[in-house]
């Protein structure tokens, strides 16, 4: 029948384009691995534990970049998460109905600002501010490794601060969705037992716990991959240090800065291998966070009804 063969062509035709997306992800993984083979072959696992980064002698160790990426992202997460959750709670549970849309829109606007603009603001406004902060830090405090280092302004603290601002809208918008999906009967049960407003909110958060953790992890993934804003304020100096004030380096930043300078293939492959690690880490974080969010949404569906695959929510 003409109808069914057209149906089939339609399905296969559109399906081919859909398959392209799958291939794309696989392609990136494949290409990254292929283009880092020299480095993988030469350094093996030592690549991840060595700190020397010497393009001249051909010795490459990515530890400082891994450290810088994780440290800055975790710091950012520590600062951003309470604020993002506070915003999500305020917008979905506490604010008057009229304010909800505008507030949501404003926080989402933070996500739309390009990182180069964050970087620009970071360099010309935030870094001088952090520099003043660093200069006025009392010497006694400066002796603690956490606060040691030259008052340059650029460094871990500036990077973490800027990352925190960039992460807030991501976590907050997903957390908002999660809270919206918590059935109101949960809060009602709490109120009926004599709970205060905050206690009822805690019950809702408890119900959506896995989804909220997923939202936090999504923000983490965002921080891990941020390049431009970070490289403009972190100082770009490869060292493993607990100090907030010392300039450091991240995986994304070193790729951005040194890619076009890589004179020989090994150098390039070393940089691409760092890119490969970044790819793997961010995908893993992304997958875990989506699974958490999905598992929470499943719970909302009645237990005696077969769970329907949830439509993915729109993220900023």
């Amino acid at each position, binding site marked *: 029948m003409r109808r069914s063969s*057209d149906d089939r062509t339609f399905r296969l035709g559109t399906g081919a384009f859909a398959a392209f*997306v799958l291939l794309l992800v696989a392609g990136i993984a494949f290409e990254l691995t292929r*283009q880092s083979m020299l480095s993988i072959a030469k350094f093996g696992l030592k690549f991840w534990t060595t700190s020397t980064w010497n393009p001249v002698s051909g010795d490459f160790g990515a530890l400082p970049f891994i450290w810088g990426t994780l440290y800055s992202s975790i710091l950012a997460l520590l600062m951003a998460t309470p604020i993002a959750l506070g*915003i999500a709670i305020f917008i979905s549970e506490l604010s008057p109905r009229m304010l909800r849309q505008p507030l949501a829109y*404003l926080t989402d606007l933070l996500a739309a*600002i390009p990182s180069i603009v964050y970087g620009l603001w970071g360099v010309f406004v935030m870094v001088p501010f952090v520099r003043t902060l660093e200069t006025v830090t009392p010497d006694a405090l400066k002796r603690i490794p956490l606060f040691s280092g030259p008052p340059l302004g650029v460094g871990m603290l500036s990077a973490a601060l800027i990352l925190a601002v960039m992460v807030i809208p991501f976590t907050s918008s997903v957390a908002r969705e999660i809270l919206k999906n918590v059935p109101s009967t949960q809060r009602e049960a709490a109120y009926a037992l004599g709970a205060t407003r905050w206690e009822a909110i805690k019950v809702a958060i408890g119900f959506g716990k896995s989804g909220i953790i997923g939202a936090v992890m999504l923000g983490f993934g965002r921080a891990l*991959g941020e390049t431009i804003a970070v490289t403009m304020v972190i100082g770009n100096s490869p060292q493993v240090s607990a100090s907030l004030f010392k300039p450091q380096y991240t995986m994304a930043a070193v790729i951005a800065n040194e890619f076009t300078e890589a004179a020989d293939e090994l150098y390039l492959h070393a940089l691409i291998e760092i890119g490969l690690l970044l790819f793997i880490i961010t995908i893993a974080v992304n997958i875990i966070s989506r699974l958490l969010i999905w598992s929470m949404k499943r719970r909302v569906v009645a237990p005696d009804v077969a769970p329907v695959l949830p439509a993915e929510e729109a993220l900023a």
Partner: protein
Amino acid sequence: MTANLRRRKLFSRVFEILCALAVVVALIPLAMILFYVIKEGAGALNWDFFTKMPKPVGETGGGMANAIVGTLILIGIAALFAIPVGGICGVHLAEYPETKFSSAVRFAADVLNGVPSIVVGIFAYGLVVLPVKRFSALAGGVALGFLMIPIVVRTTEELLRLVPGGLREGALALGATRSRAVFSVIVPAALPGILTGILVALARVAGETAPLLFTALGNRFWSTSLTQPIASLTVQVYTYAQSPYDDWHRQAWAGAFLLVMIILILSIAARLAVRRLERMNRP
């Protein structure tokens, strides 16, 4: 009221206030960024900025004409393949939403969305730059296109699903084939929303810097060639920002202002359009 109750009510109040404070704390950097961008950028935006080329290092004046055109060309290339690929993929997901294949594709699109843009840049480098050993506008456009695809996929799928199912049934009942029904009835119904979604995606990738650093590279001169490196607003701002020249800093702010304005306008337009579409579909 017992002491315990008084304490709990106090706690509740305190936390409510803290949440409100969180909103304020988040809005402060937003306000600051917008303030500085407008203050430093709007002033530096002049006719020269749009029409002149960059001056040699050290000389003041000039503009970002090549960078503006470069960005337009780059997002043009990106749109050229991201829209059909992402759009048709979105159509498939909307028409067959529950299959295992669709779930896998949706998952892949979301994964792709989370991949750092610099990594996508490396991929485009390997694909387009390495084989011909040359940086090019094409490579930059391809990188941006890959970044656009997941956004277009999700927007298209969501908006197509908003179209009331009765429309498809009506078309099929009149004897239309599946492809006819979808492409001549359903997609047009969702088109305004899809288009604005695409515009928002374009604005988003127009703001990307990292993937262009080693694909399109950058160019101090005028170029519209696809096979040569090309300037872009973002990379130019990046370069100027890191320079020691005040005049270049001024121009960097101007570029930032332009970027933010474009994104603001497009995102407002998108919101209004989607709301209009939803209202049209509500009986």
